């Protein structure tokens, strides 16, 4: 068995910083797609409650004990940072851990940076902490979650990791230049 080199999706690319906004990578963690079988929606929600979470409403996420579950579509949610325990026979589980790059954009200008790439109202009133959106990041599909007052979690396909970093870093630099120019 050859010894394979384990790399995170954004290894060697992150972190980067510009204008007080920092783009970094979340620690690699387990990501599972959870899609309850027909008629098993309530039971799946109960199983997720047992690990402190539950079934998220559209556009929302639930966090507890370092794990979280994000609504990602009709009848589908992503469980991050926890084993999908107790869901056997209740939901289709797909291991997505290697499929996504998970970036963290943080700093007081994070919203302004995202405004260059995302066609959503991300002000706290419209997109409070814990909110989730499936939308576009420039030309990429993205799962977006507000991780804090000034922080966002950005999930893109792992194959898009370098492009996402380039696009975000470009927007960060442009926003920083604008601030510097006064």
């Amino acid at each position, binding site marked *: 068995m050859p010894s394979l080199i384990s790399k995170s999706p954004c290894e060697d690319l992150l972190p980067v910083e510009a204008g007080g906004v920092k783009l970094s990578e979340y620690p690699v963690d387990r990501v599972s797609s959870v899609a309850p079988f027909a008629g098993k929606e309530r039971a799946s929600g109960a199983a997720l409650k047992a690990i402190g979470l539950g079934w998220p409403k*559209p*556009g929302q996420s639930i966090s507890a004990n370092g794990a979280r579950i994000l609504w*990602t*579509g*009709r009848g589908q949610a992503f469980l991050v940072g926890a084993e999908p325990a107790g869901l056997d026979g209740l939901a289709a589980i797909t291991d997505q851990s290697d499929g996504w790059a998970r970036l963290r954009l943080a700093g007081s200008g994070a919203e302004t940076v995202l405004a260059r790439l995302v*066609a*959503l109202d991300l002000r706290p009133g419209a997109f409070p902490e814990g909110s989730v*959106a*499936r*939308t*576009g990041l420039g030309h990429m*599909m993205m799962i977006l979650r507000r991780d804090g007052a000034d922080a966002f979690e950005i999930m893109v396909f792992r194959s898009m990791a370098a492009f996402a970093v380039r696009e975000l870093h470009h927007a960060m630099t442009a926003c920083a230049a604008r601030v510097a120019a006064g």
Partner: protein
Amino acid sequence: MRLTCPLCGSRDRREFTYYGDAVYASRPGPDAPPEAWDAYLHLRDNPAGETRDLWYHEMGCSAWIEVTRDTVTHAVGATRLIAERGGGRASGAGSPAKKKAPSKPRGGRA
């Protein structure tokens, strides 16, 4: 232009892909006669007024959505999930063939 995804809310039109008349989401049943398939594939109303379109929230939550639109005023009205309009299939599969009336091929209209 914006469309309201019943799940995601109001979103930019560029997040969606257009698939034509919403009748496209109502496939005839497996036993439907050729006439039903002919109507399903080729025959469309061309109303002056309310019509219903099929959209896909591609750069979003992947939901299939029926959008009501007025061809005269261009007003975009209600939207709903295809999954919630009742059955993916035309009700009474084969009914268009029985009628033999090309102007009314939409057995699946709720």
